[in-house]
């Protein structure tokens, strides 16, 4: 009986080198009867948790087979392969104990912090200083030179903990080399260790490994030559085979077990401890949390805490005590408190956030007195999941919070979690195709075709659709290999905001490295790894709407004297719901997209919970599960509310409890999970597994296991198979964009608040929204237009009145009006604006004073003139530009020389410039500020289009259902939602907006016009829904962008060449010498937002 353990194993976290998942390696080692496995990736421990999880799974399976007391005779050693920058051969380092692990992590942290993102810069001396508690294995290179000198140095640093590795790779001289290593080992008294330096678990992975080598080196497989391995020997081999290969040195094989015996460290020894900071000394966490909660609750409910809330608080605090989550809540509270002190708006969401405790602590603003709570429904003693609270902060100021967290807990104790960026279908096929020598053209076409259809065999027809030959072996091979590469980690990136905070040193728990962003450091493990090891993560996320709301609330305080915070905005105001029911929601959080706007008049939200549903319903989950229409029918009482029920003897009302709030239709992620547990009798573990599979659905395809289990489980208990299938489809849809009720209700509050500001203070809302750009769905032009339609007076940007930000001022009637800020001018800089404002005392009366006083560069003045912001000194765009251009390029001289300088710019003969026409001004406005207050471009073309029988948006809206209409407008947005059966185009003219729908089958015919136009003419039939939603169902789409050129043509007699003429006589590319077109030249109107 031979025994062996492979100790030099590289998983695919050695990017583009290891060609197997850690789980496959562990599985194969178990299969082959190895005594254990050592995973050591290149300068990282990123992959070891996955190996650990695989071993744990193996243990469970073993215990199921051999009884609960049996222990699997298999040991996992985790370490790293140190690749040193100074040319020393690679050294494997395995921690012997917990302290050794800490030192290895600190060693790697040191190397990583020294290098750029994703790199690790280590030298031999670093290792020699950190070697206590580490077992080292020297991996000799092909040439054995230099080992004689190196071995004694290592021996000194790690006495009795050094091995010399020997591998038999069938290179012809294996036995000679082994003899050499053996004598070297004997000479230095270092034991020889048999390894196979494994790159993959099975020899069939060789092509993949070769391809990865090619990707890494940037070569094609036909030219890679000896960069590739000569054979497929670097896989896990049976103990018998290893014994046979090492028959000249059997002690080297036996040594693998001795080595394994020395290791007492296992990842389960990593204990997570919450940081101490949030708990004052001398208090227990639970007791402090209770005190804090009651104290703050009393402050909030000045008239006494309502009974309902009191009950909730008691229950929740008891549950938190039972599960020992108090410090988690206190840690979140700690961060939220800091943000509050700094005046940064934030809002928590997630299952644990939906609680009375979180409301009391100021983590959320959903008042438990008025709304149903979800906390106890989703946090329960059985589910051993860590509580889940994500906190959103203002996007402009989140970095402050992040840096504060680093500062408060220290960089050695706080780190952002990693996100493993994996190969996706497109990237996989691109890279593999390149390595196999396919041209970019071919791989791009393959990538487009196969998008979304992975997991199944790539059908020949699909390949043929891409215009490629499915019988071509290279293409077939590329597709197969790309399938294998998919899901492989590609690189580590930082999580959007998940912090891991610890009580002790974090860098002795896991290595920390630099992120691509300045001042960010992140750990090597992602959130699944963190879950596996039971570490705690706090999510610090960014949300643009919070920035907008904070700006809105401060404007409200400043200009109207009204003081509000997120929690104090008056609830359930009917005017707000009335506005939303009319689809008047441009700029409102979450419900401003086309699909949401269409849903609003159907759903007719009347109360807060309707907003929760509104937020969640227009999502892939409910849409794919076909749950939207049933819900709407039931809501409008067209259909009776029924609850699917199982056959006797099961409780016929079991789903009533789950689905009551949503009229018997599952809409939220939690409901789908609950159905799995109630109706298909999933155990909590299984449900948890399903949730995880859902989250990673796109990466791993193990959903079908759950699919069978859930559907069969429900059918067995007497449910309708069709209903079961729809429930599951919905879960699959959640996999794409999961949307739980706990998140929806947090978002719904922000929907309400933003709608409230828009409804009662449209000027403030527009101003705050513009100052928070870029965010949301609409461009400044639409925001301004919407504001003006709501009666807001908008003034243009001007050097004598505007700040950098958009501001509010009183118009002649004393009402609030919006003054555009200098930030709306493309290319203008904030520091220029600040100089302009600070030097403005007394105002500017000429270009010369502006130039001399501010010292702004000529470029800045040109931008101001071009944006027509000099009207207050009596210059229109053309005159101002003509004057500004004359200024010398250099910086203006100090004041005392300026007089002389001004004299030099003496009078010159007046230029004979034609006055600029209004249409030209409008075009120039769009080019410089992306919006025009003067007019809409379509207004100038109206007569021209009228002759063709084209109607305006307002006229189209007034037509009856089914009427034929032609409409022309500027393209705002093109969208192709869901499965892409229809393409939505939003067109704008001077009277309003029209939504055109093009069915996919017509799309191909009009593809160019749809994709390429700025100004488009659509003909079709008007479709009006009972709720008053109007669409123009297009049967013809025509590109009329060339009409825009008329606007700026002074001589209207000159006709624009028709496209046919372009073929015969092309126009010379205007600036062939320049690589990139100047955007302002190309763009007459801003580019619309598009799908691709």
């Amino acid at each position, binding site marked *: 009986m031979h025994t062996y353990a492979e100790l030099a194993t590289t998983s695919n976290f050695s990017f583009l080198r290891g060609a197997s998942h850690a789980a496959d390696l562990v599985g194969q080692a178990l299969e082959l009867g190895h005594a254990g496995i050592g995973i050591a990736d290149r300068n990282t421990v990123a992959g070891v948790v996955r190996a650990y999880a695989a071993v744990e799974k193996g243990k469970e399976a073993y215990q199921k087979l051999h009884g609960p007391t049996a222990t699997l005779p298999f040991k996992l050693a985790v370490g790293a392969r140190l690749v040193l920058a100074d040319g020393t051969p690679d050294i494997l380092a395995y921690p012997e104990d917990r302290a050794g692990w800490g030192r290895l992590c600190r060693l790697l942290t040191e190397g990583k912090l020294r290098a750029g993102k994703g790199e690790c810069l280590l030298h031999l001396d670093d290792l020699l200083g950190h070697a206590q508690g580490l077992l080292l294995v020297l991996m000799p290179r092909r040439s054995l030179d230099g080992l004689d000198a190196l071995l004694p140095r290592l021996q000194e640093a790690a006495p009795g903990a050094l091995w010399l590795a020997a591998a038999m790779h069938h290179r012809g001289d294996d036995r000679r080399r082994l003899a050499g290593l053996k004598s070297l080992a004997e000479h230095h008294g270092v034991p020889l260790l048999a390894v196979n330096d494994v790159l993959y678990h099975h020899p069939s992975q060789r092509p993949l490994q070769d391809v990865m080598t090619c990707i890494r080196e940037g070569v094609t497989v036909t030219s890679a*030559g000896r960069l590739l391995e000569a054979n497929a020997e670097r896989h896990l081999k049976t103990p018998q085979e290893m014994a046979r290969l090492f028959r000249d040195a059997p002690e080297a094989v036996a040594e693998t077990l001795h080595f394994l015996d020395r290791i007492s460290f296992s990842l389960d020894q990593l204990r997570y401890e919450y940081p101490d900071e949030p708990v004052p000394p001398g208090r227990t966490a639970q007791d402090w949390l209770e005190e804090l909660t009651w104290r703050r609750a009393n402050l909030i409910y000045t008239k006494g805490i309502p009974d309902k809330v009191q009950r909730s608080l008691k229950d929740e605090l008891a549950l938190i005590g039972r599960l020992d989550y108090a410090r988690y809540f206190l840690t979140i509270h700690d961060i939220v408190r800091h943000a509050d002190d700094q005046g940064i708006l934030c809002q928590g969401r997630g299952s644990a956030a939906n609680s009375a405790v979180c409301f009391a602590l100021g983590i959320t603003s959903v008042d438990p007195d008025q709304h149903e709570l979800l906390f106890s429904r989703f946090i329960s003693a059985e589910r051993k999941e860590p509580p889940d609270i994500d906190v959103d902060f203002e996007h402009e100021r989140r970095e402050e919070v992040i840096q504060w967290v680093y500062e408060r807990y220290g960089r050695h104790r706080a780190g952002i979690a990693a996100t493993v960026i994996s190969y996706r279908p497109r990237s996989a096929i691109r890279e593999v195709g390149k390595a196999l020598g396919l041209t970019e053209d071919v791989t791009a076409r393959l990538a487009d075709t196969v998008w979304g259809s992975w997991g199944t065999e790539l059908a020949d027809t699909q390949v043929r659709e891409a215009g490629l030959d499915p019988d071509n072996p290279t293409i077939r091979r590329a597709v197969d290999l790309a399938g294998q590469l998919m899901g492989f980690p590609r690189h580590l990136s930082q999580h959007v905001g998940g912090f891991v905070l610890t009580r002790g040193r974090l860098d002795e728990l896991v290595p920390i490295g630099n992120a691509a962003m300045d001042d960010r450091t992140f750990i090597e493990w992602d959130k699944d790894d963190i879950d596996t090891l039971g570490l705690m993560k706090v999510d610090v996320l960014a949300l643009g709407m919070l920035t907008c709301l904070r700006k809105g609330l401060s404007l409200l305080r400043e200009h109207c004297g009204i003081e509000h915070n997120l929690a104090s905005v008056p609830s359930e105001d009917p005017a707000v719901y009335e506005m939303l029911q009319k689809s008047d929601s441009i700029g409102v959080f979450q419900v401003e997209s086309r699909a949401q706007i269409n849903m609003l008049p159907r759903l007719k939200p009347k109360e807060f919970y309707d907003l929760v549903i509104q937020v969640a319903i227009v999502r892939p989950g409910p849409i794919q599960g076909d749950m939207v229409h049933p819900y709407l029918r039931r809501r409008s009482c067209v259909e009776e509310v029924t609850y699917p029920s199982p056959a006797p003897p099961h409780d016929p009302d079991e789903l009533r409890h789950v689905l009551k709030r949503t009229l018997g239709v599952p809409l939220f992620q939690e409901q789908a999970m609950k159905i799995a547990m109630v109706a298909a009798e999933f155990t909590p573990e299984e449900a948890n597994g399903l949730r995880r599979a859902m989250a990673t659905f796109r990466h791993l395809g193990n959903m079908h296991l759950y699919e069978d289990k859930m559907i069969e489980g429900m059918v067995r208990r007497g449910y309708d198979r069709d209903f079961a299938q729809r429930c599951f489809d919905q879960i699959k849809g959640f996999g794409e964009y999961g949307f739980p009720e706990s998140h929806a209700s947090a978002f719904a509050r922000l929907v309400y608040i933003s709608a409230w500001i828009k409804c009662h203070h449209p000027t403030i809302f527009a101003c705050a929204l513009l100052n928070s750009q870029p965010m949301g769905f609409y461009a400044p032009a639409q925001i301004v237009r919407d504001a003006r339609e709501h009666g807001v007076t908008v003034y243009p940007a001007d050097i004598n009145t505007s700040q950098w930000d958009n501001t509010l001022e009183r118009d002649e009637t004393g009402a609030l009006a919006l003054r555009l800020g200098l930030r709306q001018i493309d290319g203008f800089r904030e520091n220029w604006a600040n100089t302009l404002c600070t030097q403005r005392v007394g105002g500017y009366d000429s270009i010369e004073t502006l130039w001399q006083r501010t010292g702004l560069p000529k470029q800045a003045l040109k931008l101001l003139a071009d944006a027509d912001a000099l009207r207050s000194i009596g210059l229109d765009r053309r005159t101002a530009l003509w004057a500004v251009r004359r200024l010398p390029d250099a910086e203006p001289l100090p004041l005392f020389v300026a007089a002389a300088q001004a004299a030099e710019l003496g009078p010159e003969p007046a230029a004979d410039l034609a*006055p600029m026409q209004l249409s030209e001004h409008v075009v120039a406005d769009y080019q410089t500020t992306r919006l025009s207050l003067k007019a809409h471009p379509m207004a100038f073309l109206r007569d021209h289009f009228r002759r063709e029988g084209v109607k305006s948006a307002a006229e189209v809206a007034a037509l009856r259902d089914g009427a034929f209409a032609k409409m022309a407008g500027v393209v705002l947005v093109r969208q192709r939602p869901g499965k892409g059966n229809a393409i939505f185009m939003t067109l704008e003219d001077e009277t309003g907006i029209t939504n055109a729908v093009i069915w996919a089958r017509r799309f191909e015919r009009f593809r160019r016009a749809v994709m390429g136009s700025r100004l488009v003419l659509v003909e079709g039939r008007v479709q009006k829904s009972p709720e008053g939603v109007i669409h123009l169902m297009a049967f013809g789409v025509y590109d009329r962008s060339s009409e825009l050129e008329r606007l700026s043509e002074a001589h209207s007699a000159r006709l624009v060449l028709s496209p046919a003429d372009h073929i015969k006589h092309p126009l010379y590319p205007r600036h062939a010498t320049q690589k990139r077109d100047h955007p302002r030249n190309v763009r007459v109107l801003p580019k619309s937002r598009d799908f691709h």
Partner: protein
Amino acid sequence: MSCAFSARSRRYLALWLPYLQADRVRRQERGLPARDNKAKSKVQSPAPLVFVEKVKSALRLVAVDGQARGLGLNPGLTLADARARVPKLRVLEADPAADARFLERIADFCDRYTPLVTIETTGIVILDITGCDHLFPDGEVGLYTDIIGRLDRMDIGACAAIADTPDGARALACFGRHQTAPRISKSGRQARAVSDLPPAALGIPSETVISLFRAGLKTIGDVAKQPRAALAARFGGDLVARLARTLGEEDIRISPRRPLPIVMAEQIFAEPITSADYALVILGELASRASHILEERGEGGRCFEATFHRSDGRVQWLAVQTGHPLRDPRALMRLFRERLDALADPLDPGFGFDLMRLSVLTSEPLTLAQSSLDARTVADDEMIALVDRLNARFGARDVTRFVPVDTHNPERAERMVAAIASNKSPAGLQPKANTNKTKGQPSPSWLPSGQEALPRPIHLFEPPQPIKTTAEVPDGPPFQFTWRKANHRIVRAEGPERIAAEWWRSTDDKPPRDYYRIEDDSGRRFWVFREGLFGEADQPPRWFLHGLFP
């Protein structure tokens, strides 16, 4: 006839080739042999053709053909956007080097009209045609029609214009409106002709174009009306200078791409001549005409160049240089004949030469001078000379040498290339040069870099010789083997060296080979391999002798 060049009011023709890239590719593909059906079908395929280049990690269109332009696909668009609009696109990578070569060929062709030709970086050819129009019956109109017609027959789309200054001609060629009449601005009338063109025709940066537009100056005429000082103060002196040149107020001459001949003799044929021998006779006549002129000047030529313009637009050159000034036509013709014999491709009249020219590029006073023979005897030079001589005699295909190929597979470890080919390794065998990840492997060498060399025999059998062996299972070396009826007993052996098949080759689905170096009892050393492993396939593995060690 012959001509000398005098200074007088000049005339220029600008030639703009809007679809240079596409025309190049289409011509190339038409030139392919007919048996290549795939290529042929591509030629007929109606897919619009675009050329792309990676600009800041996005593929962008850099050139298009007429069809793509008609569909609204313009240079500058990203490929993704272009595909979104027109999914069926034919996409080729831009090849600026090939474009430049093609443009050179077109400029060569233009040499037939005047030796004063220049190429601008933007793909425009400008000809100084002063005094050349009298060769055409309709003067400039005739020249214009001739050049456009010839290019059209060569399937090259071109826009041309004639004006008093190069800038004016260029502006008219690129921006002039499409008319049936040739775009020729009469001498001295240029300012009027260009006044309707947009300011972009001045060849100024786009930023300036926008600024002029904002000032309401939408044509060159509008700009010209402004005081020049005011323009210079705002847009710089460059604009004013360009304006003056475009309006024809100022002329900057072109600097021709080829040296201007000192003496030139040429012959135009109404009926193209198709015999190379006859062409030589004509060349002899031109030589004696040139020698007369040289004699008048008291000079002899040091560098002569014969130009053969084919009716399909191709141009062939034949240059000879002499160690001392020469003007004897017979001696000159002897040199030309020798030069012709040395050519790899003989003079090919194709559809016939319609113009031949003999130019004297450098000359010296014809006096007696000491001939200085260079006496360098560098081994390389001799080797090159030897290769050249062998090559001249046997042809490039038959004189070859070995170059290493980077592969594990012994059969493929070298290949033959023409000896005359450059010493550099064949393309495609090197790792990407700009990948800094790749440790320096300048070119594949015979030995793998950074590794100890594995012994390889000098001589390999092709194909490997089957042998009968007995060997230890599973991967021991043979004890003995029989080859060509002789039995060899093995006394020393090393191995195995396992080399797996190159899976990416469709034909290579063979099992891996285990190679052994072995030595028999009489000291002969062999390289043998076993194809396949024991117990993996149904049939027992086979053994082969692959090479002999010295």
